[in-house]
């Protein structure tokens, strides 16, 4: 495998995760900054000849089966397409591209070449979300009629803005909860600081094909220093109960109409059995599972958990959201 783009997420998650992945071997890393390359090479004790400042050289390497793209968002689509053309499987960080057209090209290329393309929406791999989704799917809270993701974040790349850098995660997660059900229409508002060009805060309402209503609220807590001030959760309301899952933390709050535990203590909070502490986030484990899933999809020739088509679906909702914020109206999502 090779990693293109050695920024924070590559250094913190993807490179170490590839290094411990038993079915993978890290053969090359690439970054336009020589200083970043050197820092990564020293930190992970990589061979000097495995570091490249020109990513096209990495794409030309015959030993590489898969590329992990963790460059700035504007370059995702271009690099992913080039990697597919070079015959490599691709893991691309979110968003898959900057436009629907480019995302559609990626989907077509992936289909044509039968290569795996996975998109980095790691929230799906947080174990508490997987439990909550299983309860939703098995009708434990009845039929869902509303889903919401609310997140106050301390980290947003100012040059990308909250929609591209962060809201895409929340869109993907909410769609995943509803089994990738199509979003029919969206309406969105965003807040842009006078000195900035990109949005810092955004609110989206949406309607799914099955008439379920959705709402996303994302807020950049610029200047805040502690995550303890930040509320981040997914809330699903059903006809027989409700589920609230921490966005990255381990806890799930459940209320189920009529059940003994809800009568006695409800709503009550629980965690996946392996979670150590309710305050420790599960993000690192989610990144690890995400990479394992990508590697296994290649080795076992199966669909990655978040494939290019799902990346495209998010892209379409994002584009409709951007249009809605500009034109201040409901926008149909063309899926």
């Amino acid at each position: 495998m090779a990693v293109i783009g050695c920024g924070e997420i590559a250094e913190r998650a993807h490179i170490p995760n590839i290094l411990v992945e038993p079915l993978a071997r890290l053969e090359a890393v690439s970054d336009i900054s020589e200083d970043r390359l050197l820092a990564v090479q020293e930190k992970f004790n990589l061979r000097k000849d495995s570091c490249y400042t020109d990513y096209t050289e990495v794409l030309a390497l015959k030993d590489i089966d898969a590329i992990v793209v963790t460059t700035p968002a504007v370059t995702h689509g271009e690099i992913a397409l080039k990697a597919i053309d070079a015959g490599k499987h691709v893991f691309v960080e979110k968003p898959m591209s900057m436009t629907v057209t480019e995302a559609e090209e990626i989907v077509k290329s992936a289909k044509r070449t039968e290569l795996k393309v996975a998109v980095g929406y790691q929230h799906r791999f947080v174990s508490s979300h997987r439990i909550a989704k299983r309860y939703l799917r098995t009708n434990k809270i009845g039929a869902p009629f509303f889903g919401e993701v609310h997140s106050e974040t301390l980290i947003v790349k100012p040059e990308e803005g909250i929609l591209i850098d962060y809201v895409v995660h929340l869109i993907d997660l909410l769609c995943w909860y509803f089994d990738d059900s199509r979003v029919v229409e969206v309406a969105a508002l965003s807040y842009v600081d006078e000195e900035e060009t990109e949005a810092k805060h955004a609110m989206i309402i949406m309607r799914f094909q099955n008439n379920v209503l959705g709402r996303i609220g994302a807020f950049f807590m610029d200047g805040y220093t502690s995550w303890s001030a930040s509320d981040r959760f997914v809330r699903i309301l059903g006809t027989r109960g409700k589920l609230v899952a921490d966005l990255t933390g381990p806890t799930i709050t459940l209320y189920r109409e009529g059940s003994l535990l809800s009568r006695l203590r409800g709503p009550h909070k629980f965690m996946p059995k392996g979670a150590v502490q309710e305050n420790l986030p599960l993000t690192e484990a989610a990144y690890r599972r995400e990479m394992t899933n990508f590697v296994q999809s290649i080795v076992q020739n199966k669909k990655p958990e978040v494939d290019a088509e799902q990346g495209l679906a998010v892209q379409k909702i994002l584009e409709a959201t951007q249009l809605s914020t500009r034109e201040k109206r409901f926008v149909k999502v063309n899926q």
Partner: protein
Amino acid sequence: MKHKVACIDALDNIEETLWKAIDLVGGFNPFDGSSIVIKPNLCTSKKGLGVTTDPEIVKALVNYIRSKAKNCEITIVEGDSDSSAMVAFKKLGYTKWAKDVGVRLKNISEDRVVKLLMPHGKRLRALLVPETLLFMDYFISVACLKRHAAERLTSIWKNQYGCIPQKHMRLDLHPFMSDVLYDLNSVYWADLSIIDARVGLEGSGPIEGTPKPIGLLICSKNPLSADVFAFGLVEGKADRVPSIHYALKHGLADSSVIEVVGNKHPQAISLRYISRLQYILYRWGMWTRRRGLYLVNIGTLFGVIGFALRVQNFGDLAKGKLLPTSSWLKLAWRMVTKFEISERHN
């Protein structure tokens, strides 16, 4: 408010007796389509009068429930003990009957589990809850009346100890039995409690004792009241039993206000017990083991701090980037003084 406890002569026809007892405490009327869990006491797979719950009484109970709500999903649960719960079900005569009448048998030691947080737990800060119990609508506890070497007497209140899915954790937490039972019953508060005291167990229970005919059936909608009444008959005062004393002292004293209904009002039940010296040694043993468990928790705390430092560096932790310092200290205190029923102990 007085809690009704039915005490009636256990006639030959156990079904008639049980139905009468349930009706005397106000009946049991589940909503149609509900999920009902019955927890018998199958602490061993060896057949023995007074040691494990007689399947005949569970059969009578299932018939009662079906007469009230036809479309309920009834599940009988038990965890592993000296053998797998499924082996116990089979040896004790539950398996074939359950299949015939469409009742589900569930080994909760093999069920999917989640970790329930217990912010107000007396001794538990988290508890592994099998999903069958997480989503049940009604819970019915059916137990025997038994002598217990370290606890003097056990019945309904301690039957819920078997809702801890892991056998090892049950053994580990014996020194904190009273506190843990309080916490467990706060989660699994039985909607209906039935004590099958047709035959009691005397001597060194809860498994090795000697069966003794008593001829009673006790029933209540308050699990603690059922035990308070039954233990009062044996011990004179129910709070001589440590776990009952603890529960009554910690906010559940109301459960000792009882109205006895039914055709039998015995003054006392005689169940022989172990010697006083043996009992004191058992209790001292528990006291010493409690100290050891606190030391284990201190060790675990160091491990968790180490884990937290993998996610955040010490400077950020100290500055309160993840949580304020006071919250960390509170967490640390809870980690040392309270316990977690988790898979790590397996």
